[in-house]
Structure formats: structure tokens, C-alpha cells
């Protein structure tokens, strides 16, 4: 068991995370029912209001709070109890983030911030919505500083010993987050807040979107890296195997840092005002991420095969059968891993310049990020929560809850297959995203989309049932499960694995290369945007 004070800090973050998940999931269910034409919203609640609530509470709040809580628990486990300053800074970060979350939620529910998850200009929210987002981001920075401080003190006290793999990955994840959020902080503080208050009349949309996507793509990796931490460090222990290679795991995280940030233009491939050559350059960098992704795939398969062979598995793929499919701590993340195969393929399609024209702004894209963040990441986080919540609460994961967890995972996978599958297909037929239900005056093409939208609603309903089940399990594990000792699974490295090169922990080098790549990828196009700046746009509030 980690230090009780660290467990409380971690539990604080996880609590807000699951509350946000529940509210966001209600919004998601209503969205799918409206979008299929099944219901009409009462009490002047707007579809786009729900869309904003769903996106902000799930993509930003649920994920960020969960990740920070998980990282604190893992750091305390692998580097020892948090020192006083990092712990106090962590609580300060928690307070700021929670205040920001409550403020943002209030303004979304008041319909004063119906600007969708991307809060693209020229849609304009109340200034308080943007102030709330600043609190969430700055609070998360405090958490990053606190984790780096813990790491720094630990390194100094151990005379520069190689850091534990989990803690190294946590430091890297927060480094990626900090560098990425500089972009969103810049656009919110320098553009959105003065514009929404009325200090300036107009906003430069191209710059605001560019800064948003400078943040928006690495945000995906901020979600994914903690899932990878579970796969690399936790899963080997759960399945009775060992980490394939410490060096390979660290190298993959270095590559994610380098190649996940200077790539935002692949979200703006159809955006005017950015030259094709710079878009092409960033697309090439985007595809570099395939390398650490396939390294991760190789590493995980190798862990499974090695562990399976030790258990006596025969044949080319016999090891697949002997994996602990009945253990939800493995089963949920494993389903996330398997779903990541089509999710990754979809990502490569999205980032390909020509193919992007087939799917841009269609429901395909919505289907894609429901496979990445809402399946791969979410299922891994659920799998983590099933052992982390009782571990932090001093309780145990009972066989009954384990069974319910497996049912919950199956429900989630089936629900997502319906919803995301239908989104992908109808997206290829041209159905747009970010729109409420309409048949476009009974246009034949739009009428063809209706059955797929019904499938989305069926999937959304199954997913909501899975969320209810998840809430019950998490509540039970936190407050009702029998008291006892749970294990925080941290794998050991294979004896035959090569030693980890010291250079992988040279932060100045990797952060320096990362900064250089960002400057190369963004300086000239950004200068062009300023030099040929458009007149700007006033704010619009449609709903």
C-alpha cells in the first residue's frame, strides 16, 4: 500500500474523473437519441449544448483527472511516498482544476458556452468558460511541476540512479502535456478571453485553430501514454510475465514526445491559409508516430508470447489462448489494445492528405475518436480503475465484481462496435458530424443515413448501460467491498533484456530536439499567418 496521504490525493482526482464521466455519458446518450430522431429535447436543452458537455467533460475532464490520479499513485508506488512540497503542490493543482471544472460545467449547463469541445472561433462563449479552462490547464501544470519535483528530488537522493520505468513514463507524459498545453493556453489567454470580454472586436480564426491543434493532437497522446504505461508496466505483471525491454519502452516514449507535437496541421488539411508544403511536412512527421506504435505492438505481443510459452503454450499462436481472459484487470485493457488496431489504421487514413478529403468533417471522424479515446483509452482506464480504486481504498476486487467488470467490458465493446462502426460507415457515405438530426428536407441521400443513425442510438444506449454498471462497480469497490490488501501490479524486466542506455534519461536532449522540431514545423507557416493575417471575425452565438 502506498502512503495514505498519496492515496487520498489520487482518489481525489479519480472521484472528479468518474463524476465527469457520468455527467458526460448522460449527455452522450441524449445526443445519440436526438441524432437518430428518436427523441426531442425538453426544457430548451440544445443538442449542441449536450455536445459541448459531452466533449469537454469526457475528452478533457474525465481523462485529465484520471491520468493525474493514476500517475500520482504510480509515482508513489515506484519512487516512494511523495515529498511534502510535491504533495502540497498536487493538492493545489487539484483545487484549481476542480474549481475550473465546476465553473466550466455551470456555464455549459447555463447554455453560455455552447461552443463544442473544440471551442472553435468564431463560436463565442462567456469569458468565464475560458477562464475556467485556464484554471484546469494551470492546475494541471502545477501537478506536472509537482511530479517533476518528486522525480528531481528522488534522482538527487539516489545519486542519479536509473528511474523506475513507471515514473520515467509519468515524467515524459507530463512533459508532453506541458509543451502541448502552451498552445491552448496562448490562444485562450491572448485571443479568446480578450475577445469574449469585448476588449477586441475580432479574432484571427486561423491562428486560433492552429494553436488549438498544436495542442489538440498531442492531447491524443496525453490520453494514450498512460494507457501505454498500463500495457508496458502493469499488464506483464498481471499475466505472470515480464517487461520485454525497459530500453524499448523508454525509447518509444521518447519518440512519442518528439513526433506527437509538431503535427497539428494534419487536423487542418482542408484549412485555407496554410501552404501544402508545410502540411506535407507535418504529415510526414505524423507518420513517424507509426514507429513507436508498432514498437509497442511488438513489445506487447512479445510479452504475451513469452509468458504464454513459459506456461507451456504450444504452436504458433497457442500463447494467445493461455492469457488470463477471465481477469478483468487484463481483459479490459486487452480489448482496448485490440480496438487500437482499427483505430490506428483510421488515424493513418485521417492524416493522409487525399484520403482526408473523403472523411473530413464526416461522422467517420467521430467514429474514429470513439475508437481511440472512448475505447482504447477508456477501456484501459476502466481496467486500471478495477484494481486501483480498491487498492487506494484499502479494499479488494471480489470475484463477483471481477465478473461484472468483464460483463461491463463486453457491453462497452459491443456498444462501441454498433456506434462507432455505424459512424465510420455513414461517414464514408458523407454524413456530416457536429449536426443535430435533420433529413435535409427529405433529401434521398440524407434518408439513407437514418438506419445508421438508429444503429448509433442502439450503440449509445448499450454504452450508457455499461456506464451505469461501471458506476455501480466503482462505487462498490470504493465503499462496500471487503477490506483487504490489493496489489499495485508493477512488472519486472526480462533478465535477458539489454541494459537501458543512460541517454534515454537525458531530458535536455529530448526536450531540446522536441523544441527544435516544433520550431522547424511551425515558425515559417506561423509567420505567414501573421504576415497575411485575415481581417478577423466577430463572435457568434447561435444557440
Amino acid at each position, binding site marked *: 500500500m502506498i502512503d495514505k496521504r498519496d492515496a487520498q490525493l489520487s482518489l481525489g482526482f479519480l472521484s472528479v474523473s468518474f463524476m465527469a464521466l457520468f455527467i458526460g455519458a448522460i449527455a452522450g446518450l441524449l445526443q445519440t437519441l436526438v441524432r437518430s430522431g428518436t427523441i426531442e429535447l425538453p426544457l430548451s436543452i440544445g443538442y449542441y449544448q449536450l455536445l459541448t458537455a459531452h466533449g469537454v467533460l469526457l475528452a478533457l475532464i474525465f481523462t485529465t483527472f484520471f491520468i493525474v490520479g493514476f500517475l500520482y499513485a504510480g509515482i508513489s508506488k515506484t519512487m516512494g511516498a511523495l515529498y511534502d512540497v510535491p504533495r502540497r503542490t498536487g493538492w493545489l493543482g487539484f483545487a484549481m482544476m476542480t474549481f475550473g471544472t465546476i465553473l466550466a460545467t455551470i456555464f455549459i449547463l447555463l447554455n453560455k458556452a455552447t461552443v463544442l469541445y473544440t471551442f472553435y472561433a468564431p463560436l463565442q462563449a462567456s469569458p468565464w468558460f475560458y477562464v475556467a479552462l485556464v484554471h484546469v490547464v494551470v492546475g494541471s501544470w502545477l501537478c506536472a511541476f509537482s511530479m517533476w519535483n518528486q522525480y528531481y528530488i528522488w534522482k538527487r537522493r539516489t545519486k542519479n540512479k536509473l528511474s523506475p520505468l513507471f515514473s520515467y513514463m509519468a515524467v515524459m507524459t507530463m512533459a508532453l502535456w506541458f509543451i502541448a498545453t502552451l498552445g491552448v493556453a496562448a490562444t485562450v489567454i491572448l485571443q479568446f478571453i480578450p475577445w469574449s470580454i469585448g476588449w477586441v472586436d475580432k479574432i484571427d480564426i486561423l491562428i486560433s485553430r492552429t494553436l488549438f491543434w498544436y495542442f489538440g493532437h498531442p492531447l491524443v497522446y496525453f490520453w494514450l501514454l498512460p494507457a501505454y504505461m498500463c500495457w508496458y508496466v502493469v499488464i506483464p505483471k498481471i499475466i505472470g510475465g515480464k517487461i520485454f525491454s525497459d530500453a524499448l519502452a523508454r525509447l518509444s516514449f521518447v519518440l512519442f514526445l518528439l513526433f506527437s507535437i509538431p503535427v497539428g496541421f494534419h487536423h487542418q488539411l482542408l484549412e485555407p491559409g496554410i501552404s501544402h508544403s508545410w502540411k506535407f511536412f507535418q504529415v510526414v512527421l505524423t507518420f513517424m508516430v507509426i514507429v513507436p506504435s*508498432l514498437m509497442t*505492438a*511488438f513489445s506487447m*505481443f*512479445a510479452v*504475451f*508470447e*513469452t509468458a504464454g*510459452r513459459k506456461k507451456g503454450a504450444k504452436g*504458433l*499462436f497457442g*500463447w*494467445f489462448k493461455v492469457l488470463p481472459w477471465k481477469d478483468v484487470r487484463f481483459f479490459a485493457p486487452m480489448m482496448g489494445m485490440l480496438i487500437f*488496431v*482499427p483505430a*490506428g*489504421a*483510421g488515424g*493513418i*487514413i485521417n492524416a*493522409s492528405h*487525399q*484520403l482526408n*478529403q*473523403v*472523411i473530413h468533417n464526416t461522422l467517420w471522424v467521430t467514429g474514429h475518436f470513439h475508437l481511440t479515446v472512448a475505447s482504447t483509452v477508456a477501456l484501459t482506464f476502466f481496467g486500471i480503475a478495477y484494481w486501483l480504486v480498491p487498492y487506494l481504498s484499502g479494499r479488494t476486487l471480489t470475484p463477483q465484481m471481477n465478473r461484472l467488470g468483464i460483463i461491463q467490458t463486453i457491453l462497452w465493446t459491443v456498444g462501441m462496435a454498433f456506434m462507432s462502426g455505424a459512424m465510420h460507415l455513414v461517414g*464514408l457515405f458523407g454524413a456530416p458530424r457536429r449536426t443535430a438530426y435533420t433529413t435535409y428536407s427529405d433529401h434521398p441521400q440524407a434518408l439513407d443515413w437514418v438506419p445508421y443513425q438508429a444503429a448509433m442510438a442502439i450503440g449509445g444506449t448499450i454504452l450508457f448501460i455499461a456506464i451505469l454498471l461501471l458506476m455501480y462497480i466503482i462505487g462498490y469497490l470504493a465503499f462496500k467491498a471487503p477490506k483487504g490488501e490489493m496489489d499495485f501490479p508493477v512488472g519486472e524486466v526480462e533478465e*535477458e533484456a539489454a541494459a537501458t542506455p543512460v541517454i534515454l534519461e537525458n531530458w535536455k536532449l529530448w526536450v531540446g530536439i522536441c523544441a527544435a522540431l516544433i520550431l522547424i514545423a511551425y515558425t515559417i507557416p506561423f509567420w505567414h499567418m501573421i504576415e497575411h493575417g485575415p481581417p478577423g471575425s466577430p463572435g457568434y452565438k447561435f444557440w
Partner: protein
Amino acid sequence: MPQLQSEYKEKVKVKKEKELLGTLLSVMGVGLFIVLSWAAVYLLYLSR
């Protein structure tokens, strides 16, 4: 003695490589899936 150790390490390495054939094929399968998915949407792009 160093020669014996080196031979042992070599044997372990060969054995491990043999053990990871399923891993290699699995990753190749993932790669193939990605290429086929990409090609399918590319054909759709060409047809439009």
C-alpha cells in the same frame, strides 16, 4: 570459460528469436490490416 558463456548467450538468443515467431507474425498482421484499410479508402477516393 568466456567462450562457454558466449555460446550459452548465443543459444538463449536463438531460442528467444524462435519463441517470438508468433509475435513477428502478429505485428505483420497488424501492418497488413493497416495497409488494406488505407488502400480501401484510397480506392474510394479514386472512385470519387
